[in-house]
C-alpha cells in the first residue's frame, strides 16, 4: 500500500514543473519530492456559478406561509414595537446596523420625542387612521390581563401602565394600586382588551374571578413588601408622593397626549443619566427629575 502511494508522490514531484520545494516547517517538509506552488491563487473564480436552491417543498411552503401570517398577526397587536432607525443613518448603501461598539449601535436607533417629530407629517390627517403610529413602547396596559405572579415585582406597575419612570418606577406603590383600581372602574372595559367587543358571558365570569384573585395577590404582596422591603422603599419617601400625584393627574387629564409623548419618551434623558449612574441615595430627586423632564 505505502509503496504505491510513495511512487505516486514521486511521480507528482517530477511532473510538477512550477513551484519550489516546501519551506521548512511545513508538514511533510522533509520530503524533497514535495513541490509547493507558492504563487498566489486567483482570488475570485472567473466564472462564478452560484448553486441555485431547489424549489420549496410543499411542507416548506406551508411552514413559511404560517410564519408570515403569524408575523403579520403579531405586528398588528399592541405589543409590537416598530423598527425605528435614526433617519440620518439610513442609506440605500447599508441600511443594516454597523456594529462597532455599543455607543454606535445605540446611536442608530431612532428616538421619538418632540424634537424628532416631522412637523409636516405630524398634523393629523385622514390617512393616519390606516397607519400604525410608530410604536416604541409596547402598550402593556391595554393588551390583556397579565398574570403578575410570573413577573418580578419591579415590573408590576409597568404591566399596569403606571410606570413612573426612574430607576424604581416599576414597583407598585400604594398610591399606584389604589388609584389604579379607581381608574379601572371608570375606564377599562374587560371586553375591549383585544379591540373587539364580542361578549361572552360564560367566559367573562372567569375573567372576573381571575380579577379577584389578582387583587388578592396584590394585597398579599403589599403586606410582604411592607414587612420585608422597608429599607429599600423608604428612600422614595414622602417627597416623591406629591410629584407622583401630580403626574398621575396629568396623565389622567390628557391620555392621548400622554400616549404620544410621555410613554414614548425620549431616549436621551439627562436627569435619568445621573440617576442611573449613581446609587439610589438620590432617590428624593427621582420624582422631581422625572416630572421636570416629562412635562
Amino acid at each position, binding site marked *: 500500500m505505502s509503496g504505491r502511494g510513495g511512487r505516486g508522490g514521486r511521480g507528482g514531484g517530477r511532473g510538477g514543473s512550477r513551484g519550489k520545494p516546501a519551506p521548512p516547517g511545513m508538514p511533510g517538509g522533509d520530503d524533497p519530492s514535495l513541490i509547493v506552488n507558492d504563487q498566489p491563487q486567483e482570488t475570485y473564480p472567473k466564472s462564478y456559478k452560484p448553486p441555485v436552491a431547489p424549489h420549496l417543498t410543499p411542507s416548506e411552503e406551508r411552514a413559511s406561509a*404560517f410564519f408570515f401570517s403569524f408575523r403579520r398577526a403579531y405586528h398588528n397587536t399592541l405589543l409590537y414595537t416598530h423598527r425605528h432607525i435614526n433617519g440620518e443613518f439610513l442609506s440605500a448603501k447599508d441600511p443594516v446596523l454597523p456594529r462597532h461598539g455599543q455607543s454606535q449601535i445605540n446611536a442608530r436607533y431612532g428616538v421619538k420625542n418632540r424634537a424628532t417629530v416631522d412637523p409636516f407629517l405630524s398634523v393629523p390627517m385622514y390617512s393616519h387612521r390606516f397607519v400604525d403610529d410608530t410604536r416604541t413602547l409596547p402598550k402593556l396596559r391595554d393588551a390583556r390581563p397579565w398574570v403578575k405572579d410570573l413577573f418580578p415585582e419591579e415590573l408590576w406597575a409597568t404591566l399596569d401602565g403606571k410606570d413612573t419612570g426612574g430607576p424604581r418606577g416599576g414597583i407598585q406603590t400604594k398610591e399606584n394600586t389604589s388609584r389604579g383600581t379607581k381608574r379601572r372602574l371608570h375606564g377599562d372595559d374587560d371586553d375591549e382588551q383585544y379591540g373587539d367587543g364580542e361578549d361572552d358571558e360564560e367566559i367573562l365570569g372567569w375573567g372576573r374571578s381571575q380579577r379577584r384573585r389578582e387583587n388578592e395577590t396584590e394585597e398579599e404582596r403589599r403586606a410582604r413588601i411592607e414587612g420585608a422591603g422597608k429599607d429599600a422603599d423608604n428612600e422614595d419617601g414622602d417627597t416623591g408622593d406629591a410629584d407622583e400625584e401630580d403626574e398621575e393627574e396629568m396623565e389622567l387629564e390628557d391620555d392621548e397626549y400622554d400616549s404620544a409623548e410621555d410613554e414614548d419618551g425620549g431616549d436621551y434623558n439627562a436627569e435619568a443619566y445621573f440617576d442611573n449612574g449613581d446609587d439610589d441615595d438620590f432617590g428624593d430627586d427621582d420624582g422631581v427629575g422625572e416630572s421636570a423632564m416629562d412635562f
Partner: protein
Amino acid sequence: MLVTRNAADLCALLVNELYGQLASRIIAALLARGRSNVRDLSLHTSLNPKQVRHGLALVIQHNLIFYQTDRETAVTTYEANPQAAYHLVRVGKVLDVIGRNYGVTARNLVNDLLMLGNVEIAELVRYHRLKHGRKKAAVNGNDANDHGPGLDHELDNGNADDPFDNDLHHANGNGVTHSTADNETPIQVDEIYDTLAQLIAAGVVETVSSTMFQSPQDLKASIEQECTQEFPNGVRGAKVISEFDAMVKSQIKAIGAERSMTKRKLQESAMYEPSNIKRRKLANGGMSNGFAGDSGGSILRDEPNTIVRLNFDKCLVELRNQKLTEHAEDFVGETTAQVYAALLASLCKKVYRCQHDQHTIMTEEEEETYFTGVRVTTEEVFDHLSPDVDVSSGIGTASEEHIDIRFAEKIRKYPPQVQGSHLQETLDAGDEILGSDDEDYDATGERPKTQVNGNGGWTAHNGTKSDGDYSGEGHSSRIEQIYQMRQHLLILAEAKQQFVRHCGHNEWTVDFGTLIQQLRYAELDTMIEDNFGRQGLRLTRILREKGKLDDKTLPAMALMRKPDVHVKMAEMEMAGFLEVQEVPRDNNRAANRTMFFWFFDEARTLRRVLDNGYKSMVRCLERLEVERYKKRHVVSLTERKDVQGNEEQMLRGDVYNEYLELVDIEKKLFSQVSRLDDLVSIFQDF
C-alpha cells in the same frame, strides 16, 4: 447552545422580526452583557429605565429570558435564554407539524399561544374564540380585514390528502366531523378544551410554574441553598454530602413532578391516548359514543387559572420525527416511510425532549424512558398507521427459501455503540459480545397460517390481489396487513442506517442517538464533498475511521499522490475541518524530525459548521432588511390597515407587482433560513 457572536446577532434579528425592536434590543444587550439588572441594561442600551422595563415585561411574557430575584437585596437580574430566542426561527415549521399531527384546531391554539406567551387557560380559550370564531365567519363572508383567510382555508384543504397525516383530529370531537363545524357554527368551547387537553397530554403545551423563569442552573443553586439550611453543621464528610445530594435531587424531582401534574392527570383520563381512540374506532367499525365523556376538557374547565405555554422541546421531537421520516423515504421508499412515521408517532408519545443535560428537570417516568429507551409493539404501530396507507405496496418479493428467517428476525437487545469519530476501536470488541445474542429470533414473524394454506397467491406481488380478497373480511385482513407492515419494519431494521431496532418479540425501538449521529455524518459529508470534492471527503472519512494518522501513511491509505493530499489537507485545515498535531521526535523540533498527525475533530468541526450556519442566517435576514429598504415605499403602503389582506384590489398595478416581488424575495430568504435551520437542528438540537 453555544452563543457565538453570530448566534447572538441571529437571536436579536429573529426577535426583531417577530416581536419588534424594543424586545430585540433588550435581548441583544442581555446576550452581550450576560445577566444584568434594569440599571445595567438602561446604561448599556441608553434606553430609559421605563423603556427597559417595558421591554423586559414583553420578553418575559414570551419566555425569551430568565430572571431571578435575590431575596435579600430584592434586586432582580435578567438573563437571556438564547435557545428560546433561536426557536423563533422554527415557528412556521412547528405550526405546520402540529397542524398535521394534531389537527387544525390544535394548530390555531398553538398559534394563539405564540401570540400570547404565558396565558391562563380561560383567557386562551376566550382569545381563541374571539379570533378564530371570527375568522371562520370571515371566510364565508369574504371579509376584507382578516389576515390571510384564504391562505388558511387553502392549507386546511391541502392537509386532507396528506399521506403523513395521522388523522388524530378526526378523533377529538364527539363524533362531530370537522368540515361542518368549521364553516357553520362558531367553534365549540368543548372542542377547544378537548384539543387543549390533548395537546397538554401530549406535552406540546405545558403548564407554567414560577420556577420555570429561573434558569435551570439558578434553580439548582437556590435549591442547594435551601438545603444547606437543613444542615446547620455544614455539608462535610462523605455521608452528609450524599444525604445532601439526595435531598437536592428529591427536591428537583418534586419540582418536575409538580410541573407535569396536569399532564399526568390528563394522560390518566385515557380518553386522550390517541391509540385508544383509534383502537376503539377500529374495533367497533366507527366512532363509539360510549366513552365520549368530556373528561379531559372538563378537567381543564375546573382549572381555568392554570397557566400554559408552548413547549418547544416536544415540538422538536415532532420535527425530528418528520426529519427521520423524510430520511427513511429517501433511503427506502414512500410506503415504508409512512410505516416509519406511524412507528415514530406511537413511540414518541412518551418522549418529551430530544436531548437532555445535567440541568434538565425530568420526572421519574421521563427519566426511565430516557435511559432505558421506549419500545412499542407491532400492534401499537399498526393502530397509529393511517388506514389510507397501502402497506402491501413497496415490498419486493422473495421466495421463502431465499430468506434467512433467523437473520431477518434477529433480535438485537442492546443498542449499538455510539460511533465516535475515532479512537474507539478497542470498544468495538466488547460491543460485539454485547450484541451477539443472535441465537434469539422472533418467531412471530412467520407468515400467518391461513395464508400459507391459500392458493400461493401471496408469492405474487401483493398490491394487486389484497384489495379484492380481503377488504370484505375485517379481521383476517387486519392480520395480513399487520404482517405486511411488519415486513416494512424489518426492512427498516435491516437498512444500513438501522432506522429501527427489533428489540424483543414483536417489539420495536429506535436508537435516536446513533441514528441522528449518522444523519449528522451524512450532512457533514455532503458539506465536505460540496466544498472540497470527492477527494476531500475520502480523506476526512479515512481520518474519521482511523483516528490520528501520520502524514506519511495517509497518502498510501487514500491511494492519492502525496502532493495532492497535502494540498487538500492544507485547504481543509484552513477551512477548519481538519486539525494537525505536531509530535517532535527529539528536542530541537526540526521539521524532518517531527511527525505530523492529521485528525478530524468532530466536536470542533460541528461548532464551526454551526457558527457558519448562524452567520449565513444572519446574512439572509440582513439581506431582507436591505430589500425592504429598497422597496420601502411599497412596504409603507402594504402596512396600511386598509391595504393589508387585499393588496390586489387596493394597490396600483405596478406597485402590486413590486409587492409580489418583495413577497417572493422574502419567501426565498426565509426558506433559505429555515433550510439552514434544518442543518442546525440536525447538528445540535435533535
